[in-house]
């Protein structure tokens, strides 16, 4: 037996990171995250924040779709609820940003529960389509409600901490990254308990889950609530990051983006949500970079950027579903198995 995985007690066996080395590596990763803003350029900080926001939202969607098996094409619309809530509170109430984020998350959770109510009767695709319908309705509300500023949307002041405005990626990094970190940790914890197991049971075989003692509607709604709470928080972070929220900020393609992120990353694994969201956020940047490289030889490259991005996006979805349905997390696991010891059991 490998020394690294020798178990001493059940508590150790049930831990998230169960070897010394894993703990060490996690510590190193945290240290790197702390040092990063001091060495990175604003561009990289901007990307880091964007990745973190997308990780938060994708992790939420992963809880609903990857773990509970309820497909949602409404994640972006849920984010918009959080974003608008935060913007409205920031503009009209001037309450502290953490409170605003929390209220945004909770309100979104309520909306999510509303959208989830049909989930006991309608399944699979029908549910996905119901979430599209909900997105359409939400879009309409935000585009027509005076409080949310119609098509113009809302511009909001930055978050403030002890009188200091958080308006640069450097400062926002310290808001966004810790919140995302806690959200991911919360999601990982969830699946160490009966609540997470109930979600997975519903995904794998919901009718027998019921006979085994799991009230379906309750847990489906709970999954919707958690997932949209995450979306709401992510949307709130997004609002603080961009400080302009309009009805077009969260189009249906963004919902597809998050679904694509968890497919590419690996559905039903925490690591998958992280990897997928980061990967899908970075791919367009990579393409931009490549376009910049080839422009001297091929001047039209920048014009082709948008359609190529669309094609790459579609191909990634299709390619992963066909060739690696368990996503990047599975690839990672294979690499890890190759090297024997590495953090993250999930």
């Amino acid at each position: 037996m490998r020394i690294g995985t020798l178990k001493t007690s059940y508590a150790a066996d049930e831990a998230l990171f169960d070897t010394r080395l894993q703990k060490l590596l996690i510590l190193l990763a945290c240290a790197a995250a702390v040092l990063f803003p001091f060495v990175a350029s604003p561009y990289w900080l901007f990307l880091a924040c964007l990745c973190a926001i997308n990780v938060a939202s994708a992790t939420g969607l992963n809880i609903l779709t990857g773990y509970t098996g309820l497909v949602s094409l409404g994640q972006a619309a849920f984010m918009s609820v959080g974003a608008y809530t935060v913007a409205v509170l920031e503009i009209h109430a001037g309450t502290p940003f953490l409170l605003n984020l929390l209220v945004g998350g909770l309100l979104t959770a309520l909306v999510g529960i509303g959208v989830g109510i049909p989930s006991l009767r309608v399944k699979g695709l029908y549910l996905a389509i119901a979430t599209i319908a909900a997105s359409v309705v939400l879009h309409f509300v935000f585009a027509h409600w005076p409080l949310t500023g119609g098509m113009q949307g809302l511009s909001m002041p930055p978050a403030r901490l002890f009188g200091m405005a958080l308006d640069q990626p450097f400062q926002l990094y310290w808001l966004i990254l810790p919140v995302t970190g806690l959200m991911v940790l919360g999601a990982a914890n969830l699946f160490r308990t009966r609540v997470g197991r109930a979600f997975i049971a519903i995904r794998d075989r919901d009718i027998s889950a019921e006979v085994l003692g799991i009230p379906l509607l309750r847990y489906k709604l709970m999954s919707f609530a958690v997932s949209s709470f995450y979306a709401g928080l992510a949307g709130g972070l997004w609002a603080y990051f961009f400080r302009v929220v309009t009805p077009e900020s969260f189009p249906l393609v963004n919902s597809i983006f998050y679904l694509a992120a968890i497919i590419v990353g690996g559905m039903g694994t925490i690591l998958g949500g992280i990897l997928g969201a980061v990967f899908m956020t970075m791919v367009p940047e990579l393409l931009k970079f490549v376009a910049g490289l080839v422009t001297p030889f091929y001047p039209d490259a920048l014009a082709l950027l948008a359609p190529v991005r669309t094609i790459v996006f579609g191909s990634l979805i299709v390619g992963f579903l066909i060739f690696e349905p368990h996503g990047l997390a599975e690839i990672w696991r294979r690499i890890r198995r190759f090297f024997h010891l590495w953090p993250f059991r999930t």
Partner: protein
Amino acid sequence: MTDWLFLTEVFLAGLGSGALYAVTGVAFVLIYKATRVVNLAIGEILMLGGYAFFGAAAGWHLPAWVALPVAILAGALVGAVVERGLIRPMIGESPISVFMVTIGLGSILAGFVQIVWGADPLRLPEFLPSAPIFIGEAYVAPKVAYGFLAAMVVVTAFVLGLRFSRGGVALKATAADQAAAYSVGIDVPRVFSLSWIVACGVAAGAGVLVGAIGGISPTMGVFGLSVLVVVIVGGLDSMAGALVGGLFIGVVEAFAGTFLGGEYRFLVTFSILILILMIRPYGLFGTHEIERL
């Protein structure tokens, strides 16, 4: 005072666009019945048909009666390739994964036409007679009227063809029980291929009509969203449902667009969708599947 003439004209215009929904919906249903795949890329295949027609008619200067079959063939070809290359490998995967594959496919197609033909909207060369048409006193835009006629002919041909041909029997058997159909000697993979080929050809043809009326653009695929509403309302596995649902949604959209404003169109149709999902989740004419433990 109600302006009956105006209402009639709105109604007829609604039927006109509804017929295009119906014919695309029928294509959608055909694929669903045969392969249980919800093809969200149907809107993009429709778009591709419009562009193929444009390419043939404006690019190669072919006459419309040649360009139309070219467009249909292009659609059929894409259908064949997609079925073989993307759908067949996904047999046995969860319906949601296959659904996502079609979303990815839609994205690929949209990017592709944008690379070939650019991002700006284009107009198709005129090919339908343009003499104004009146039904009673009500004016109908000629393109809409011809689109309606063509769509209805295709839908009727479909329904009759499936009812009376061997292909129809094979399709019905496959839809009812794939394994059983296989065991009685029906070539299920062929049914799969053919349904994709025919459905994508039909969708591409519909794209030519849609493009003739409203022009073509790389975002034309959103037409697929309305079609999705249509088939959910009608029932995913019901041709009759697609017909009725298509006409119904077309008329509803026309009235909502006229009396409430264009931005209400989606709101109204999707509200209907939500309502249907609540009261009849399997659609007006769809079959309800019972679960077993």
